[in-house]
């Protein structure tokens, strides 16, 4: 989240889409209820089903699963057409005025400029700003009709490849927002195609209802009023699509357009679906990041210098403006990280052991792991608290992949489907005998049996204590990892190997190496000084070995060590900030500055400088977050300013300090996104219709689908005409609460929610068994005949949507007693992924529905 | 069933057979239990009755079973006596002579058969109230089994049961009074089965004559 859970209570307007917080985040949802109760805030819910969240909404719109960009694009179009935008904010805090270079083409035909059909990728060099100065008020010559930019000449043998395109340091800009190639005009043109009629064709939302929602949501900016704030709240209903990243982008753009980012009660707010998934992504539980969202090195990065040069952005902005470009400090983050990893073995001479880092040469994301296992190249898997068989997508493919693996280590608190893949329903006795995979089951500790910190959606790191020890032979995760590591290290010591150095030189500074204390790890992550360091401005000194006070202290010369720069400041010499439990909230905004610690630097609302006008005065005096104090010549406030504290407003330093432009990006240039600088509506990979905007390019052109025999896809012509989405319920949590009598009592059986009309067509009554089939598998459960999902008219065609919860599988209380069909939901889902975040398209694929 | 009355060797008349007496006392004793426990549930002032009868909870458990026993005995009596309890012409005259009967001016009361109209009313009263108590009683025994949509049955049961019970109490009071205080010999007839000729002649003249005739014709 850019904001936080409690901050939601400060909002005036909520758009909840691609998420169902009442059911999946009931405790966090209380803040949305608080906003309604105490501020008469309005709530708009857009979802393929009328959920329990929708039951508290002021306005509910049923949408076809996967049509979110069309809806949000329609809102952008509406906001611009009806002048319900934050003009000053738009002009000064976003790249609306930046001029894009010639050669850039919008995707009226579904393709941006630079598409290579053979490789399914884009040459993004035209997705860039024009170099130049102030073009405000200058007449623009009529543009020549678009000619595709010439492809860059291929490198001659022996010649270094041409330097990749870069952002120009001085960006041409038109502060009148009139230049036809300025971002604002391009944005306007892009979404001019997203008329209410088009929105209706794509989403199924009747035009008048769409206009009602658009009017309501944008009403906060009527007559240029800047006092109110709107928030957009979403979850995996948005991310689990082949354009999921772009859906979120559209929302971010809408929020920038309306001046909601950085505002209390505003922002773009992801509801993370697990108590520590935010911590997992912060600490790089993903293949293409290093902790703190540093980009991973690739084989093309010859050395540390080359790597750092590639990933460190340089500022790119209109000349008169200032850009903090905080990622320019990347070298400090990288070096400090390397020092944390390799300690004394990382020296200036050896590039701080840069060579020890693995170089990521391709996509190693989740579906790729299983795909490679299926193909036989991945021989074994450690699955720690991760039920891969149930997660899918394409559960059967994952089961078959495990059958081919040599070994599987499952760390879990109970026997799950992954550790029992070998006796999944449908596996014959003969097959079982032929499965050679060795399965190791390590009993692990449950959440109440571990201490450590968890990072929530609001970016708060909160320490928890152990409530009780693990039972029997169960062990703590860190003990298991430590003991595997120590044994591996010993083997390397004894037997050598191709390149043992990274293992042998990995720091392992724990008092008991076999039982690392998580508090020690937390301190390591915060980082410490490796030499005496003094801050020239304040003359404060941090001595060698002391915990660093914050990431401003990080250095690129090897005198600091830090496991994750964004967590720097979480465990200082003053103590474990993440253990604080101060309940004071003097501003009443729900900031609670002394409760736990949020990254970065305990800032609760990101980009909060944007909550003030150009002079540094809050847009809404009732919700003062930060402001410029003229007398003290610095930014102060109830929240920690997410900004350079002493930069006066007149210097026009952009609030979006993590962007090289210093401003919010309506247009995302160059390589940041794989599929376009603006989001474009593409159909889900399995869709009932052709894309009304460009039927010849229905889907996201850079989406790669996996191509083994197990990767099958269905079309309406094959009889798959019903749109299916999967989701979670309040009463169960993923795949493990089916082992808990309490949850099983509340939701005892799997079910499939189908519209009353579909049930009538099929002659099916509620609680009768039905089966849902996709190109990949079949799911059997009882029908839940409901009025909460209505049939829709999609581009003139009647389309049914159904939904099913994912919680039941083939191992659990009811499953063990054979009280249900024992089919996992993800037998149905497709192996096709978002090209930026690699998330599979779990929400919006085609199925057929029949009596069982 | 036919009346089995006959002249006995000892000169008395058999009025009630062994089986009839058994039925009666089964019914009577179960009724008394029902009455006592029922009164305990009827009035907080009498709740102590259930307590002394083994506890209130067990009283509630046994009351319906005693009810079933009572109803079984009553149905048994119906099979045995219904034919003898049909209304005849004499009954209408008897009702007109009721004030004389009450004032013990029995010479002014018409001659009647084995049962006078009052006794017949008692029989039918207990029979019909028994049915009403059975049906309402079963509903009160398992109130939760009656679906919420049919709850009007519970509400009916809750008023029918005490009303029918009160009617039986009235009949019972009169029955006990008549049998124990007013018609000497009546109790003996229901315990040992026989009555004297004088008793029969006094209170059930037509029946007396019938029995004598039959015994004479048998000789």
């Amino acid at each position, binding site marked *: 989240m850019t904001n936080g859970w409690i901050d939601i209570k400060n909002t005036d307007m909520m758009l909840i889409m691609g998420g169902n917080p009442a*059911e999946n985040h009931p405790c966090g949802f209380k803040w949305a209820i608080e906003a309604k109760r105490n501020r008469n805030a309005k709530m708009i819910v857009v979802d393929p089903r009328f959920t329990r969240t929708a*039951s508290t909404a002021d306005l509910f719109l049923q949408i076809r699963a996967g049509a979110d960009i069309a809806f949000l694009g329609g809102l952008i179009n509406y906001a611009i057409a009806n002048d319900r935008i934050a003009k000053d904010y738009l002009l000064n805090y976003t790249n609306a005025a930046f001029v894009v270079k010639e050669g850039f083409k919008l995707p009226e035909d579904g393709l941006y400029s630079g598409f290579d059909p053979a490789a399914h990728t884009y040459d993004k060099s035209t997705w860039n700003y024009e170099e130049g100065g102030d073009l405000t008020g200058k007449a623009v010559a009529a543009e020549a009709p678009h000619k595709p930019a010439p492809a860059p000449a291929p490198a001659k043998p022996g010649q270094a490849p041409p330097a990749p395109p870069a952002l120009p340091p001085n960006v041409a800009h038109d502060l009148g927002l009139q230049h036809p190639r300025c971002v604002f005009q391009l944005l306007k043109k892009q979404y001019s195609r997203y008329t209410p009629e088009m929105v209706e064709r794509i989403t199924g939302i009747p035009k008048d209802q769409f206009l009602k929602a658009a009017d309501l949501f944008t009403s906060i900016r009527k007559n240029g009023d800047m006092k109110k704030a709107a928030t957009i709240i979403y979850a995996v209903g948005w991310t689990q699509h082949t354009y999921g990243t772009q859906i979120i982008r559209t929302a971010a753009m809408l929020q920038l357009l309306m001046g909601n980012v950085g505002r209390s009660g505003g922002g773009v707010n992801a509801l993370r679906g697990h108590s520590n998934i935010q911590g997992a992504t912060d600490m790089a539980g993903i293949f293409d990041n290093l902790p703190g969202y540093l980009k991973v090195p690739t084989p093309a990065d010859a050395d540390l210098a080359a790597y750092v040069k590639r990933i460190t952005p340089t500022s790119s902005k209109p000349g008169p403006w200032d850009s903090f470009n905080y990622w320019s400090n990347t070298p400090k983050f990288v070096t400090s990280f390397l020092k944390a990893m390799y300690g004394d073995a990382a020296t200036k001479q050896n590039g701080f052991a840069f060579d020890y880092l693995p170089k990521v040469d391709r996509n190693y994301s989740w579906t790729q792991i299983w795909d490679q296992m299926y193909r036989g190249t991945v021989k074994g898997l450690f699955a720690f608290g991760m039920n891969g068989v149930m997660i899918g997508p394409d559960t059967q493919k994952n089961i078959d992949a495990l059958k081919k693996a040599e070994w599987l280590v499952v760390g879990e608190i109970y026997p799950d489907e992954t550790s029992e893949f070998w006796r999944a329903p449908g596996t014959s006795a003969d097959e079982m005998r032929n499965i050679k995979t060795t399965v190791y089951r390590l009993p692990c500790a449950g959440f109440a049996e571990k201490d450590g910190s968890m990072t929530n959606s609001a970016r708060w790191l909160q320490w928890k204590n152990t409530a009780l020890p693990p039972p029997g032979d169960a062990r703590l995760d860190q003990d298991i990892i430590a003991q595997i590591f120590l044994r591996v290290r010993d083997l390397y010591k004894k037997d050598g190997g191709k390149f043992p150095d990274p293992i042998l030189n990995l720091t392992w500074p724990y008092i008991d190496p076999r039982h690392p204390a998580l508090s020690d790890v937390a301190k390591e992550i915060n980082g410490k000084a490796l030499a005496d360091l003094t801050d020239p401005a304040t003359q404060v000194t941090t001595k060698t070995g002391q915990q660093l006070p914050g990431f401003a202290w990080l250095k690129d010369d090897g005198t600091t060590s830090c496991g994750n720069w964004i967590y720097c400041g979480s465990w200082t010499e003053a103590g474990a900030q993440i253990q604080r439990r101060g309940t004071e909230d003097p501003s009443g905004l729900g900031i609670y500055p002394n409760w736990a610690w949020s990254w970065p630097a305990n800032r609760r609302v990101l980009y909060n400088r944007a909550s003030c006008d150009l002079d540094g005065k809050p847009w809404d005096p009732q919700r003062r977050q930060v402001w410029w104090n003229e007398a003290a010549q610095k930014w102060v406030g109830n929240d920690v300013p997410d900004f350079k504290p002493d930069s006066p407003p007149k210097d026009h330093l952009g609030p979006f300090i993590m962007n090289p432009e210093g401003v919010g990006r309506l247009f995302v240039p160059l390589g940041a996104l794989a599929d376009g600088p603006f989001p474009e509506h593409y159909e889900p990979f399995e869709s009932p219709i052709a894309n009304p905007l460009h039927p010849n390019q229905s889907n996201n052109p850079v989406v790669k689908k996996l191509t083994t025999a197990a990767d099958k896809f269905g079309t309406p012509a094959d009889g798959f005409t019903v749109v299916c989405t999967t989701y979670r319920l309040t009463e169960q949590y993923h795949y493990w609460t089916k082992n808990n009598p309490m949850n099983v009592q509340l939701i005892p059986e799997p079910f499939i929610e189908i519209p009353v009309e579909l049930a009538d067509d099929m002659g099916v009554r509620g609680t009768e068994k039905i089966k849902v089939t996709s190109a990949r598998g079949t799911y059997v459960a009882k029908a839940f005949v409901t009025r909460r999902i209505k049939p829709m008219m999609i581009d003139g065609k009647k389309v049914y949507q159904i939904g099913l919860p994912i919680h039941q599988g083939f191992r659990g209380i009811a499953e063990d007693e054979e009280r249900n069909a024992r089919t996992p939901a993800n037998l149905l889902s497709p192996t096709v992924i978002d090209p930026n975040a690699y998330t599979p398209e779990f929400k919006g694929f085609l199925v057929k529905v029949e009596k069982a | 069933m036919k009346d089995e009355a006959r002249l006995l060797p000892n000169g008395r008349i058999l009025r009630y057979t062994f089986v009839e007496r058994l039925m009666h006392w089964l019914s009577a004793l179960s009724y008394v239990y029902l009455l006592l426990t029922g009164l305990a549930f009827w009035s907080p002032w009498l709740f102590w009755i259930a307590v002394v009868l083994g506890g209130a909870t067990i009283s509630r458990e046994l009351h319906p079973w005693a009810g079933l026993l009572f109803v079984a005995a009553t149905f048994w009596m119906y099979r045995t006596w219904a034919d003898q309890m049909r209304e005849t012409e004499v009954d209408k005259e008897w009702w007109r002579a009721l004030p004389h009967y009450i004032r013990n001016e029995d010479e002014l009361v018409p001659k009647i058969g084995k049962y006078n109209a009052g006794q017949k009313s008692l029989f039918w009263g207990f029979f019909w109230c028994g049915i009403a108590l059975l049906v309402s009683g079963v509903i009160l025994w398992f109130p939760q089994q009656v679906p919420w949509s049919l709850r009007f049955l519970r509400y009916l049961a809750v008023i029918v049961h005490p009303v029918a019970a009160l009617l039986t*109490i009235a009949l019972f009071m009169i029955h006990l009074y008549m049998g124990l205080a007013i018609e000497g010999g009546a109790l003996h007839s229901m315990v040992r089965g026989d009555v004297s000729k004088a008793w029969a002649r006094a209170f059930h003249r037509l029946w007396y004559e019938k029995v004598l005739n039959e015994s004479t014709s048998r000789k």
Partner: protein
Amino acid sequence: MSQATTEIRRISGHAGSVPGEGFSRDYDVCKLIDTTTCIGCKACEVACLEWNGYSFTETTFDNSYQTMPETQWNYWNLIKFNEHEREDGSMQLLMRKDQCMHCEEPGCLAACPADGAIVQYANGIVDFQQDQCIGCGYCITGCPFNIPKFSPTARKVFKCTLCNDRVTQGLEPACIKSCPTGCLHFGSKTDMKELAENRAAQLREHSGFANAGVYDPAGVGGTHVIYVLHDATNPEAYGGLPKNPTIPLTVRLWKMPLKWLGNFAIVGGLVGLAVHYLRYGTKTEEVEEPPEQAEQGAKR
């Protein structure tokens, strides 16, 4: 709360006066359930089970998120779900927490014949005392909300206690504590009523629910569990909440007029019989006969 709130106001099946009658109303407690902010998460169902020590049971799917069709003797608190279409065609998913309403004039207590089996405290809580319960189930008939439920194993009747054991220790009921959205509130009747009316007014003014209102039915003298409903003119839509609940007519007839009549009749009857005996005495077998009749009788 002070000891005074555990004073008893009414006792079922009790002969004589009740200590504590005629107390002050300031002690009334009230649970406010705002159905407009309920998200049907069932935390309250689980909290009630756990506080009262009941184990989880096997249930079946019945075309609804609802855990089971009705409350049970060991499941006192149930969210009822209703997919309701409004007149303008828009959808509502109405979710109402169903449990004992703790009526000011409780039908269960009125119908109960067992001395002390049902107690109404000064603070309005109506509590079953299973030690005194005889398991007759009259309370089941007396309740207009279908709440008391019979346990076939314990052979007694059970229902929500409004966490009397917690309230007397100054704690809020378990369900209140567990509610994540703050849809449940607990406090004095006066305060909760005010909160509810304000919320209903807010709904009418700001959320387009013209019929929003508070459910505090006068037919049972008001209740110590009140609801804010989006549409107070249609409580039936909320999982069958009765529109005009009262103690059933026949229960009232039985307990009041019939009882007086019946007692009067019994006593009157006994007195009448005694008087008759005094006056007329017993019958004799020596029945004087008019001469003609005797001869006629002998001939026959």
